[in-house]
């Protein structure tokens, strides 16, 4: 059989993820792409639980549990240690949730990025602090309900644009991905592996308990997030040049919102508001991609 993603399984069964967990899928794909020659660092996040209690582990690669705010710097420390020993073929990956990236880990990530340490930083974004019982984070989208933003006072702030913050550090590669498109995610990881410097990947991971959706539609939701333009897939090279990974025809936003309990309270006007915000952002990305076309054309020619 011809596989569209690598056949090797580094992650093992028996991990403690919920049914239909997007984060577990993201890890499975990441390890397929990176292989066993990888060292990971986890801050406090869902994955520090999913991995299992001492003395067991589910990832199948060496991994270091760090403090909540230090995933990125511990990874750069590991890279410095590997460099001192002359080991060049090992991938160092910081693997953090949205809380450990958008809120608590941002200063360490910013420092690592500024030094341009040679690591891959993967943020699996389930859009709230799911591990501790669904509290709002700065990655929670506008309109969503969490335990700290109940339906009457749903989240009125937009999702933080982490990709733009990282791109403003002029890092070589920033990309967003979705668990519904593993081929695309693996392609991006392979590219990240091939270049030097800090690489940031932002992957949308569905969370059935936190999003209050059925576990069986986890992958469908991740797909709809991209198809309704709520979570666009794009890359930023050198912090300046944008490239859309896919540009699907827009589906109605309600397709994405309806199956999720966290958006159930929204009125029609509020959904229209949300749609406008999404369109605004998407057209900005398309403009940027249009502007960056000459850069990618020139790159293709030199190859």
């Amino acid at each position, binding site marked *: *059989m011809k*596989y*569209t*993603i690598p056949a090797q*399984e580094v*992650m*093992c*069964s*028996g*991990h*403690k*993820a919920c*049914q*239909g*967990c*997007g984060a*577990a*899928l993201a890890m*499975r794909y990441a390890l397929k792409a990176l292989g*066993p020659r990888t060292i990971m660092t986890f801050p406090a996040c869902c994955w520090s639980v999913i*991995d*299992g209690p*001492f*003395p*067991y*582990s*589910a990832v*199948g*690669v*060496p991994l270091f549990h760090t403090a909540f705010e230090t995933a990125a710097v511990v990874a750069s420390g590991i890279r410095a240690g590997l460099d001192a020993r002359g080991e060049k073929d090992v991938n160092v990956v910081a693997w953090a949730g949205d809380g450990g990236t958008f809120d608590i880990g941002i200063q360490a990530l910013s420092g690592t990025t500024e030094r341009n340490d040679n690591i891959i930083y993967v943020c699996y974004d389930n859009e709230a602090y799911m591990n501790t019982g669904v509290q709002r984070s700065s990655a929670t989208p506008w309109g969503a309900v969490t335990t700290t933003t109940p339906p009457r006072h749903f989240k009125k702030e937009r999702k933080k644009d982490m990709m733009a913050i990282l791109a403003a550090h002029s890092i070589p590669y920033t990309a967003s991905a979705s668990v519904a498109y*593993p081929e695309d995610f693996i392609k991006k990881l392979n590219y990240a592996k091939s270049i030097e410097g800090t690489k940031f990947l932002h992957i949308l991971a569905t969370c*059935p308990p936190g999003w209050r959706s*059925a*576990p*069986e*539609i*986890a*992958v*469908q939701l991740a797909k709809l997030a991209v198809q309704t333009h709520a979570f666009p897939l794009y890359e930023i090279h050198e912090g300046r040049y944008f490239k859309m990974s896919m540009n699907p025809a827009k589906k109605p936003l309600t397709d994405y919102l309806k199956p999720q309990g966290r958006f159930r309270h929204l009125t029609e006007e509020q959904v229209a508001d949300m749609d406008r915000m999404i369109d605004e952002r998407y057209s900005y990305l398309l403009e940027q991609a249009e502007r960056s076309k000459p850069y990618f054309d020139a790159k293709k020619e030199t190859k």
Partner: protein
Amino acid sequence: MSDEIKWKKESDMPLMAMSMGRMTVNKTGSWRNLRPVIEKEKCIKCGICWKFCPDVSIRLDEEDYPVVDLEFCKGCGICAVECPKDAITMIKEE
């Protein structure tokens, strides 16, 4: 951290507490309410169920038909939804 690591001397051992076991000791099949059943006649061997299984509990046999490992399957039902030929149905666990 493969299964066959063995230390010959004391000095080979790690300096800090280190997890050496694998989570395959945790049989997550007991979490399951619904069980996936695959109809071989409808299966087109596309491997999509294998691709989207978050619990790594679907493998492909010698003829490329998917086989569910019921020791670990948590019964999330992603495979049944993603199957393009509706060859997987979820039935209630007794």
